[in-house]
């Protein structure tokens, strides 16, 4: 069985990653995330009200449940966040850091829009 820590281990050099298509941009409702599956990697992808796109790991590190795409999107002190639906811990969409628990974080992925599609960069 794949453990959480293996999922989050990613290479540092992001420019070598492959771009993979998640879905058409208009499928992404503002502030409501979607989950996407690439091999065994689960990604939660978000579109903010101002149009910015973010992608982070979908697995809640506290519980191991793949649910972050279903959390409420908002901001804390101006930093865009998603709150895990299980125990309501907020994660920064910018760097994946948990803002309610020291030392807990989720991976982040590069994300872009190409020809009307949302794409994320994967190793």
């Amino acid at each position, binding site marked *: 069985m794949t453990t959480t820590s293996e999922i989050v281990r990613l290479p540092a050099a992001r420019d070598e990653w492959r771009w993979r298509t998640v879905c058409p941009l208009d499928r992404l409702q503002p502030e409501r995330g979607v989950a996407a599956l690439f091999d065994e990697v689960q990604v939660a992808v978000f579109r903010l009200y101002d149009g910015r796109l973010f992608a982070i790991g979908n697995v809640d590190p506290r519980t191991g449940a793949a649910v972050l795409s279903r959390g409420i999107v908002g*901001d804390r002190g101006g930093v865009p966040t998603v709150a895990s639906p299980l125990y309501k811990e907020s994660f920064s969409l910018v760097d994946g850091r948990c803002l309610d628990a020291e030392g807990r974080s989720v991976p982040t992925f590069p994300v872009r829009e190409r020809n009307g599609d949302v794409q994320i960069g994967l190793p």
Partner: protein
Amino acid sequence: MTKHLVVVGNGMVGHRLVSAMLDRATDWHITVVGEESRQAYDRVALSSYVDGASEEELRLPELTGLDLHLGDPVTAIDREARRVVTASGTELTYDALVLATGSVPFVPPVPGRDLDGCFVYRTLDDLDAISEAAAAAVARPGPGRRSAVVVGGGLLGLEAARAMRLLGLSPQVVEIAPRLMPVQVDEGGGALLKSLVAAQDIAVRTGVAVSAIRSESNRLVATLSDDVELDADVVVFSAGIRPADTLAREAGLRIGERGGVWVDATCRTSDHAIWAIGEVAALEGRTYGLVAPGYAMAEVVADRLLGGQAAMTPDELDMSTKLKLLGVEVASFGDAHATSEGALEVVVNDPVAGTYAKLVVSDDAQTLLGGVLVGDASKYSTLRPMVGLALPADPVAMIAPGGVELGADALPDSAQICSCNAVTKGALRAAIHDGACTVPELKACTKAGTSCGSCVPLLKKMLVTEGVEVSKAICEHFAFSRAELFQIIASTGLRTFTEVVERHGTGRGCDLCKPAIASILASLGGGHIHDGEQAALQDTNDHFLANMQRNGTYSVVPRIAGGEITPEGLIVIGEVARDFGLYTKITGGQRIDMFGARVEQLPAIWKRLVDAGFESGHAYGKSLRTVKSCVGSSWCRYGVQDSVGMAVLLELRYRGLRSPHKLKSGVSGCARECAEARSKDFGVIATENGWNLYVGGNGGATPRHAQLLVQDVDQETLIRTIDRFLMFYIRTADRLQRTAPWLEELEGGLDHLRAVIVDDSLGIGAELDAAMARHVENYADEWRGVLEDPVKLERYVSFVNAPETPDPTISFVTERGQPVPTPRAGDPVLIGIPSLTRREVSA
């Protein structure tokens, strides 16, 4: 060596003494001998018994580590042998004896006062007897009003009058003094009080006495001193109390000039081994009929018995009172009758608004001496502690409407904020600086506010002035409470989160404000909760209209209104659970919960359920959950109404109603209460004559019993009352505040709630009714709404790029024949579950 303390009397003051002794390690063994067979109870709250409070609720905390000898009064004291004898012949020797026998009702020597139908108003037994007589009178056939004559228009008399009205009788109060509550209020306040009381269908006659009572064709006739005759089914004497000092008189103890066992400032009687406390004690000759001085005496005696030097200071005994009778607030404090030499009275009398306020100040107008407040006593908590202190402002401005608002900061540290428990402002400040930052925490560590509660508003103000932030702001994005946001959204007509946050907040919201605003929009009739932008506001469970479980799967609960389900319905649920591999469990709300559904399975599961006639049970929402019911009169031998029918009616009326927190209800078909309605936010219990409605109950971590709101009402009144209750709650409660804490915090409590929704005191009844009518009319099943809308259905996929692929992190193991989530490392492990085969059986 252990010494023996015998306490005669098991009332509030005796209880306080014993509690104070047990709080400290002592070498005293304690025996309490009581005349009433009941456990000690809160006699100050006696009248709430008529409102439906049970004996258990009135009971004082049970004490352990003592001998209780109840239902057997002490009949004699042998002072020589230091021994008491009880009615049953039990003999107890003592090293110290405390008399806490309280008082007996004073019944004026009126001919006919012993007739059947004449009662006193003092104990739970008295109230039981009165209730029985009132019920018999109400049930008696024949025309005409059933009425009660209440002799005495003091505090107790007005409470009795209110109780009579609750029992279905028309009360007539007869008071010998020229005004109601002559001890507490002055002439001006009394006049206003009389008109406010009379406005509530309680006839008041002052300045007359009852001179005779006679029996006439199964009823009573009371003749007054002005020759007026009053018909009555019940006569209640509540004309004051006399110290229960017979035992002491017979034992030859010194008696006060106006009755009561004479005690010195240490509460010691003329016998060194005997003490007296509470209403039976004549402290340096004077008796006190309030509980606070009694408590102070109990503390003094406890201290003395343990070798301390405590003493009473009768001059400082606080006779202040604040109470709410028949919805009318009355307070008096300090020198209310301006008996101090040269005292000046400042009066603001507003008969239009129904308020009267008087301050008594020293001859130089520099010091506050006392005051009287009628109609609005909200300033009592700040004014009372200022008695004896320099006036901080012009006395007229202190009581005039729109005048100066005084807070705790106007008081010195020595001022007593809580007079019941003698807690000073200094002690409260110390507690706040030691970390108490909420009212409940202050109550717990100082006892302030735990008796009469009148100082609680001041405790709140103190927390603010001491720098403890009691912010009502819902989160960093809004500086408003939920109730304020509700008002803003309702009055501005804004119907999207974006509009609301742009005009009245900052940023883009969070998991606190978004669901709160989603709930407000839904309560205001915002359509399907997944329409448009609303979809992104919904909390965890509302996100996919199902309850998220620990592994990211969902549980599904179809509505089973009132817990009533056909065999066909049961079979459909069973088949759906079997076909989708779901774990099933019966819920506490008489429904069936199916666990382990993956998000992409939800539409197919609900298609089957909706096709079979089921609808969403809203188990996921902060909304009405279930209306639990017992089987009721259709089947039950004891049922008096159709509780299942009522539960179904209520559940279908309020289904889908979004609220600040979940709402639970129950309907019981008789007083046996098998549906546990009193543990619900709104509970209905059938009576012979209709329905009783209880509100503000819940189970959970802080269980609360619901309180009686209306009694014996018909179905139409019941439903209108619940409609208004729910809508008023939805509009004014805080985020995630259930009905019980909401009601506790509601200024004016249950009486205020009743005034708003029964008597329509705020004039919003029609508006609340209309809001509920809109809800009922616009209700639509949320799951049907999803199944019929391809855009909404599109959301129910595991992965946007692989819609049918199950989430690979989800797996199950089998436990007791059903699937449960695979345990994760770090999960709690059950150890040592006993199995039958391993259990050793003793022969």
